[in-house]
């Protein structure tokens, strides 16, 4: 089997988790990702004994080159590497890139086919284009933090936006690679944490764009909606069960589900307070929520899961991480991998969210040590002979 991106060289100039992960997604599918680590910037302490589980996820399948970019020679080496790459992935600020002549204007001169991919904070244009690349700032601007929790509770940062950004940048890069296949032309790709957070909030945002400014309904969308005031008691709702685990239901078509659900929660299916969709979702909505609140507390989560499963209801128990960690479905689809770590024995690590039949993602290596591939890359990619590499090492330019 071949790998989808096995002819692509990616230079990874990233600091953040999400940008590094974006490059890792490309590496999972065969891209040769070379991570550049700055010697001057890292003042490493003694080797940590604990498993660096984060690095083994976000830097897996990558090579590592260590350079002192603060020296002119180190900077030149970096520029030489950019000139030989197909893709550059970065989350650095434009000003920091420009100092090293790594801004798009400069690098595209030596490498016009380069795809220059950046995760920014707020996009390539506009007054806030140079704000720091911090997901919390972007999430705060997106409008969802004040509404997803229960009324009276503080705003909630989910951390999901940056994960959207990681995938979006990958999509942008490969889309640009397809254009380059046809034309040889490189270009800039930008996705921002702001855009990514907005995309995660697609439906609320789009609805809000469409709703009339003087519509009184607007207020309901601007504030948290209590779970005991949910618009449809059996869709988008949450109820505690007897063992404290929560259940959630998504059954918008209440006519279809009521005959199955009602007896299960101990309500007479012909109870005339609830015998139509209108009554269930409008007239007696709050009374039904109250009944369901009591009904679901009569049995533990396991009872409800079994019932939902038998009746093919789109409803489930809200789980903690122990569930996916041990879920056979997760394992068989390689969403979480179990493997033998050379230093830490049997471990579990997040696997591959995309399945491809002919060019599946593969784990060739865990995170490299800093500088593990410096010599190899200088030799193979840049064509330096051994003595020149020795000299650069002696001068502290590379490590």
């Amino acid at each position, binding site marked *: 089997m*071949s790998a989808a*991106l096995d002819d692509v060289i990616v230079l990874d100039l990233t600091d953040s988790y999400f940008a590094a992960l974006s490059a890792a997604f490309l590496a999972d*599918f065969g891209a040769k990702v070379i991570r550049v680590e700055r010697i001057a910037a890292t003042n490493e302490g003694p080797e940590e004994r604990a498993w660096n*589980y984060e690095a083994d996820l976000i830097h897996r399948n990558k090579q590592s080159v260590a350079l002192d970019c603060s020296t002119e020679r180190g900077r030149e080496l970096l520029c030489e590497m950019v000139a030989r790459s197909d893709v550059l992935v970065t989350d650095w600020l434009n000003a920091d890139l420009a100092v090293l002549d790594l801004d798009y204007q400069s690098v595209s001169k030596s490498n016009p086919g380069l795809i220059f991919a950046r995760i920014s904070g707020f*996009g390539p*244009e*506009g*007054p806030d284009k140079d704000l720091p690349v911090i997901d*919390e*700032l972007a999430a*705060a*601007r997106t*409008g969802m933090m*004040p509404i997803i929790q*229960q009324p009276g509770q503080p*705003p909630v940062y*989910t951390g*999901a936006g940056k*994960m*959207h950004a990681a995938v979006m940048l990958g999509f942008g890069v490969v*889309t*640009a690679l*397809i*254009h380059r296949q046809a034309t040889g032309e490189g*270009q800039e790709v930008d*996705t921002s944490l*702001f*855009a990514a957070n*907005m*995309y*995660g909030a*697609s439906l*609320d*945002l*789009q*609805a809000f764009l*469409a709703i009339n400014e003087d519509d009184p309904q607007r207020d*309901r969308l*601007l504030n948290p909606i209590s779970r005991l005031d949910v*618009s449809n008691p059996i869709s988008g709702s949450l109820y505690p069960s007897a063992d404290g685990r*929560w259940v*959630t239901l998504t059954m918008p078509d209440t006519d279809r589900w009521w005959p199955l659900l009602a007896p299960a929660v101990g309500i007479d299916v012909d109870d005339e307070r609830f015998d139509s969709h209108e009554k269930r979702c409008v007239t007696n909505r709050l009374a039904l929520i109250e009944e369901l609140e009591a009904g679901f507390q009569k049995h533990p989560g396991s009872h409800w899961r079994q019932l939902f499963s038998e009746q*093919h*209801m789109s*409803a*489930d128990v*809200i*789980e*903690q*991480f122990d569930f996916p960690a041990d879920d056979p*479905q997760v394992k068989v689809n390689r969403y*979480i991998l179990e493997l033998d770590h050379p230093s830490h024995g049997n471990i*579990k690590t*997040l696997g591959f*969210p*995309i399945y*491809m*039949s*002919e*060019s599946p993602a593969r784990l060739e290596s865990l995170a490299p040590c800093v500088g593990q591939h410096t010599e190899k890359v200088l030799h193979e990619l840049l064509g330096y002979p051994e003595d020149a590499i020795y000299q650069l090492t002696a001068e502290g330019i590379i490590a």
Partner: protein
Amino acid sequence: MAKALEGIRVIDFTVWFQGPVSAQHLADFGAEVIKVENPKGGDQGRGVRSMKALPMGDWNQYFLVINRNKKSIAIDLKKPEGQEILYRMVEKSDVFLSNLSPALLDKMNLSYEKLSQINPRLIYATNTGYGRFGDVTKPSFDMTVQALTGIMARLGEPGQPPIYLGMGSGDAYGGIMSALGIVMAIYQRNKTGRGQSLDASLYGSQLFLAAPHLQAYLAGNKDSALQQSRREVENPLWNIYPTNGKWIYLCEENTDERFAALCCALGEDLATQGHFGSTESRKENNIELITAIEALTLQKSDAELLSSFAANSIVSSPVNNLADVIKDEQAWQNNYFMKAYCEEVKREVDVRGLPVTLSKTPGEINTLGPQLGQDTELLMMDLLEYEWDEIEELKAVGAIP
């Protein structure tokens, strides 16, 4: 301008949200996306006129935005003649995308085995609920799948109910994941000439929404599965704080220098109060420091606080609401929001724009979602090269409307 995915033809056999939005990404960058719909009503998403049981504007915003830039052909696939039409499309297409279940696709004679025989170059993409392997076949909706990932249970203050990330949050993620898989398969196909099947499930994708925390849990940090209070975060300088207006997100490193700047902005020298003088002590006395900072921020309006933060170069943001973001200049200038003409109401409407910016082959919004079957005849003649009398016959047997 050139389009990155020009010449790529996609059969979009999807419903609701994840599948359509996945194909939308491809259509935005120039792929010719043809929605295949049942003549009786089409994609169920066409019927979504409300959210949270509230009517949302006077146009069909849910369906029209995620199906923008697409064509629509109406085919009755239950009829053998209808199937033949689809097979002819498969011959002439690059991608087949569906979020129907593999079992149902099998039953409709639309399995990968079948379609790849017709066109070995075809990329066959599914968006399943729980993955291509294993025996889980239960219904999958965004929120019921999100429930299994563990992300909901760890959000919010301790003791509070779990928190859903927002309507369609998981579908949107599954959609872009699927689009990434598809473009990778196209890139490879352009080199090898061979297609393949791929899947991006709602479950597999959403497990990555909480990747940092789930990975920490897998490494033995059990607390990362649990709710954590904003009153107990380790670095009090990276936290949300209430004012007498909006909340503020403060994002600063826990260093003496940044703490001094914060104290300056707050107008109170907390450092000299003894137990906040060092990085370590601020970490150790985090609860106390958070309380002290909050006491000060509560005395100010968000505008006052943000302006004194700005004056001291403190990194922070107001916690805005939806009414703020739809007016956010930054979003409009980057085409994250755009205007598009809507046939249904005969005027320009505001839509979600393009979250990925390509400098030389930018995405575009040319049309909003198609009417059901609006391109059927034209596609039958031009793309599929049926003669007019054949089309009449297919209409007569009800294969097309």
